[in-house]
């Protein structure tokens, strides 16, 4: 089928706009020191931590976000609109403010502070805090893209399934989910990417201690204080990791 020719002009422009800065980074990377930079212990630890936490938070996003999306897309109740916009908020909130909000909530003196104290678990300054921060900022991505997919998939097949005697859970497992799998996949990719790049909320809520809470972005920032080029080099690593992960996700997706 024909895509209008002229469409390629703005498309190329857009691609250029997004890609040029990446090229610029690559151009400025101090390749001579590159290896030494990215293999330094602190970098390796930071990368490992980033991958661990991002994976975890993506998982949580899926576990909590899929139900939210389904409820938003498949039920209707008063105040649903408001709820939907509220769920989007972590997107607008400057990450740092998000971090403060998390402190106000899970911190020692926060809303749930006492509760947690009693349970004897202290969240702040722990890897858990990092995961929480990432989940908080990444959740909306998953919810939004999945809800969109659910809506456009429509309910006709679910209706058929139900009339064949499948109870809601079966319908959900065998019809709804498989049909929106692509949407879920790209949602998860978005969430993972966002978690991987998360900085503001993490440093504010979780702090920054090597091996425990200092993810790659935090490491990058710190390096930057002393040596901007090193920072750039490290962010390249981040980029590469992302490309690989996204690539895989896409494959899985197209395999569906």
């Amino acid at each position, binding site marked *: 089928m024909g895509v209008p020719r002229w469409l390629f002009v703005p498309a190329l422009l857009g691609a250029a706009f997004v890609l040029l800065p990446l090229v610029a980074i690559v151009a400025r990377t101090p390749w001579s020191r590159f290896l030494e930079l990215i293999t330094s212990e602190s970098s390796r630890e930071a990368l490992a931590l980033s991958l661990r936490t991002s994976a975890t938070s993506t998982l949580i996003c899926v576990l909590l976000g899929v139900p939210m999306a389904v409820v938003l897309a498949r039920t209707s109740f008063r105040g649903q609109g408001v709820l939907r916009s509220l769920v989007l908020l972590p997107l607008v909130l400057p990450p740092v403010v998000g971090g403060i909000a998390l402190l106000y909530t899970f911190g020692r003196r926060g809303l749930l502070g006492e509760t947690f104290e009693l349970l004897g678990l202290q969240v702040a300054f722990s890897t858990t805090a990092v995961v929480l921060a990432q989940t908080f900022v990444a959740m909306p991505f998953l919810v939004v893209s999945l809800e969109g997919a659910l809506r456009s998939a429509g309910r*006709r*097949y679910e*209706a*058929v*399934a*139900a*009339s*064949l*005697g*499948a*109870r*809601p859970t*079966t*319908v959900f497992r*065998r*019809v709804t989910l*498989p*049909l929106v*799998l692509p949407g879920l996949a790209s949602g998860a990719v978005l969430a993972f990417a966002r978690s991987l790049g998360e900085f503001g909320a993490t440093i504010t809520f979780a702090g920054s201690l090597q091996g425990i809470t200092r993810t790659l972005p935090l490491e990058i920032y710190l390096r930057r204080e002393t040596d901007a080029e090193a920072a750039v080099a490290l962010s390249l690593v981040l980029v590469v990791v992302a490309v690989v992960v996204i690539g895989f996700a896409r494959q899985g997706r197209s395999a569906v």
Partner: protein
Amino acid sequence: MSLSFDAAVDERGVDVALDVAEGETVALLGPNGAGKSTVLSVLAGHLVPDRGRVVLGDRVLTSQGRPGERRTQVPPHDRHVSLLAQEPLLFPHLSVLDNVAFGPRSTGASRSTSRETARQWLEEVGVADLAGRRPAEISGGQAQRAAVARALAATPSLMLLDEPMAALDVDVAPQLRQTLRRVLADRTVLLVTHDVLDALLLADRVVVLEDGAVVEQGPCAEVLSRPRSTFAARVAGLNMLRGVWRDGAVEVAYGGRSMRVEGIAAEPVPGEGEDAVAVFGPSAVSVFLEAPHGSPRNLVEVTVSDLEPHGGQVRVRAGSLSADVSVRAVSELDLAPGTRGYFVVKASEVAVYRTR
């Protein structure tokens, strides 16, 4: 289980009441847009009526807008009602086999058992060789057959079939009709069709809808032999003229002019001035170019609109009326679309019924 249905969907101008006895198969006939699919979706629970009550066996499936009665709307999966919709709607992500196996599997059968069942049904509809394909990889008719198989594989208390024979080739249609005849025999079924043969062979009773309301119902043979509704007459391939009963004949307005149609009035004989219909088969109609002067007393001036082969003969259509004549007759009178002439029917061949 027996079904009692009475529901109205205002947005669609549909207000229908009908019953289906246990183990009975009822054919739902009616023109496009009459409300057949609407009735089915209300039954399946996909559409909530504005007012109405649906009872299957002893369970109230739907009860809406009935003062003094509490609203009920049993969810689709819990109704034991399966629906074969007008579109196949096969699950795109499942193989044809798993599509058919879906019903049994969902109602508790083991994976292997349900697959086995599915395979048998695919055999029945003659697409067993496509079991492994995705719905996107099969033809329209094959999809329709798979959908039928999927509907039959489920074992609901009530079965709804919306044009199950659509898109099937002349080769399978009779086979499938046989299959349906066998499996529907002892099930409670509501069947939507546009084909008189389906009604005659598969259904015990027919219900005729027009403009969202029931206009006629009864045993197939009866309704189709002595229809009281225009549509039923069409389906049965009979001619029908509507009018008023005035001293011993039906006064009809046809083609702008009024005329009297005589015939044998069936009990209960219509009273003076009551609405009545005159019904007669195309084979009872003879065609003349000039008005004949003979015993047959019913004569209608017509313009031939069209000729169709029909069995060994030719069906001559003129507006809503039609006559079956021999090929020789056609060539002798050299009938063609546009020819003006007369349809003549012996009074003894015309049945007259009262309609209220």
